[in-house]
């Protein structure tokens, strides 16, 4: 059965190999240039005392290609689910060839096992390879951005795309098996994959590990922002400027030792406001720092790999559940 599945699948495999080869050539051609720019600007920026300009300039290098590669790794699993997984079984129903393949000398379960096995293996290998190449290509850029948990970046680097690919393929095959129509199966694979990806990104990934807390003093560089609200003035701080590179900062709160935020009365006194923020920024920060500190809720950068593995496991687990359901479904008599 494996040889027969391979017979049916050679064209797609050749196509996938071709795409991977083209991407590899493009990355191999542009990658060394990125390293060169990194070495000549960012790596030596300390000597020129202007690292932020160098960093910004560097992260803008090959901008369109960066976007394209991100989109490629993001979309390929979805395309695999829609255009390979979904038709894999539903087309056999639509063209009636299931009556041919299911009456050869092998069982339906074995037939399905090979469809799943070969499909999942090849998609995982292809997407894994793609992700590996893109991760390699982007390594300096990622180092400078120091934002590895960025939702747009986390899902298109390292190993999680492998889980997405396996899940997308299995979802497509399962939808085809249940719906027996190609178009509805494709749409199900599309909607289902996007929905699960979103749910995991928004509601699973943040809760995989309990976040850590850290108290940091308020310093001059802390990007405080003041808001006039109906109940008075408030102060907050954006999560980005907190100075924990590569960490995933959930929130930053300005609180005193008792955990209370500054009162409106205190802020009015300590940080009288002009049209564009505090009238005296330095005094304001000093007065705040004297009684308050920043309480940061975050995932430390060291949790990047555990999270990659956990999310990979979540998607592989979901794929296994779908496979189990499909085997149960295909053993049930057809109606």
């Amino acid at each position, binding site marked *: 059965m494996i040889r*027969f599945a391979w017979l049916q699948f050679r064209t797609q495999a050749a196509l996938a190999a071709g795409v991977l080869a083209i991407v590899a050539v493009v990355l191999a051609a542009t990658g060394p240039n990125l390293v060169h720019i990194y070495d000549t600007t960012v790596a030596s920026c300390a000597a020129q005392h202007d690292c932020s300009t160098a960093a910004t300039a560097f992260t803008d290098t090959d901008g369109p290609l960066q976007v394209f590669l991100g989109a490629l790794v993001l979309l390929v699993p979805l395309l695999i689910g829609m255009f390979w997984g979904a038709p894999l079984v539903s087309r056999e129903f639509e063209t*009636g060839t299931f*009556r*041919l393949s299911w*009456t*050869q*000398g092998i069982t339906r379960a074995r037939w399905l096992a090979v469809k799943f096995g070969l499909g999942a293996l090849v998609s995982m290998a292809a997407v894994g390879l793609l992700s590996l190449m893109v991760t390699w290509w982007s390594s300096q850029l990622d180092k400078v951005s120091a934002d590895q948990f960025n939702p747009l970046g986390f899902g298109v680097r390292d190993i999680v795309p492998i889980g997405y690919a396996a899940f997308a393929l299995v979802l497509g095959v399962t939808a085809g098996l249940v719906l027996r129509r190609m178009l509805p199966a494709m749409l199900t694979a599309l909607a289902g994959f996007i929905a699960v990806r979103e749910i995991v990104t928004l509601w699973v990934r943040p809760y995989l590990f309990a976040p850590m807390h850290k108290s940091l003093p308020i310093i001059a560089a802390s990007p405080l922002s003041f808001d006039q609200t109906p109940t008075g003035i408030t102060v907050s701080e954006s999560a980005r400027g907190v100075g924990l590179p590569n960490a995933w900062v959930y929130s930053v709160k300005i609180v005193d030792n008792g955990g209370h935020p500054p009162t409106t009365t205190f802020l009015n006194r300590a940080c009288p406001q002009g049209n564009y923020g505090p009238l005296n920024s330095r005094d304001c920060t000093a007065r705040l720092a004297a009684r308050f500190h920043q309480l940061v809720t975050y995932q430390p950068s060291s949790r990047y790999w555990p999270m990659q593995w956990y999310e990979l496991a979540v998607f592989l687990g979901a794929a296994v559940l779908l496979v189990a359901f499909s085997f149960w479904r295909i053993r049930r008599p057809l109606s």
Partner: protein
Amino acid sequence: MTAVIETNGLGKRYGRKWALHDCTLTIPEGKVVGLVGPNGAGKTTLLHLAVGLLAPTSGSITVLGGRPDDSSAQLARVGFVAQDTPTYAGLSVAKHLRMGAYLNASWDSELANSRIDQLSLDPRQKAGSLSGGQRAQLALTLAIAKRPEILLLDEPVAGLDPLARREFLQNLMEDVAVHGVSVVLSSHLIVDLERVCDHLVVLFGSQVQLSGEVSALLSSHYRLSGPRREPSTMPSNQEIIEESHTDRQSTFLVRTDDAILDPAWTVKPVTLDDLVLAYMSQARGPGHLQRPALGVVS
């Protein structure tokens, strides 16, 4: 005589509609069996049940003594050509043969290749560009080369022109003669089956109406015509299958195992076509409830 297919009260229901109902049937070994009935009579359902593509709602079926389930041992013994002879449009003839070899432990590749040669099919041609007749032949080759003990063909000639029909059936008969395989062949046209079948099963309205040896069927049915006569006055050993009356004349199609002795009748033999039509209209007609729905002649 061993049975290749035996069903007992077999039924398959889709929603509230029975596609096949209370079907009790024995198909003997080594025969070419014609399964006749109009579209929707349950022919495909019966064949799909026999090959294990469907599971029965009620009753039981055994094929070659085994239950048609999803086991490779059972699948290997049954060759199946599905309706519309499905093939993979994108795969060449040669790749179909490789598929057969990969998926069937008992694959006879010599037989497959020589059949393709004989049919002068181009092995490199994609199945999608074959003519209906060629595709049917390819499907038959795949089913035969796995060397099954029974071959089930679901309306294999329905889409073919008369010449291709004849060639296909001739080919099939040659294979049957050489390999001694039992065959069940369905069609909604009796003319397709007349020449090749030695056993007939008539399905109508999801039920078996008639089952028996063709020769026995023909020799036990007569068309009688003579002066008008009420059906109730007919002898009890003559079962009336069909009757028609004018003011002065009556015509009956009867089944009897005894000779027709009444000199008032003009006795004519029946054709298979007459017989099938008579049983079908009997099943449809208002009077069929009084008589047994199933006629078995062996």
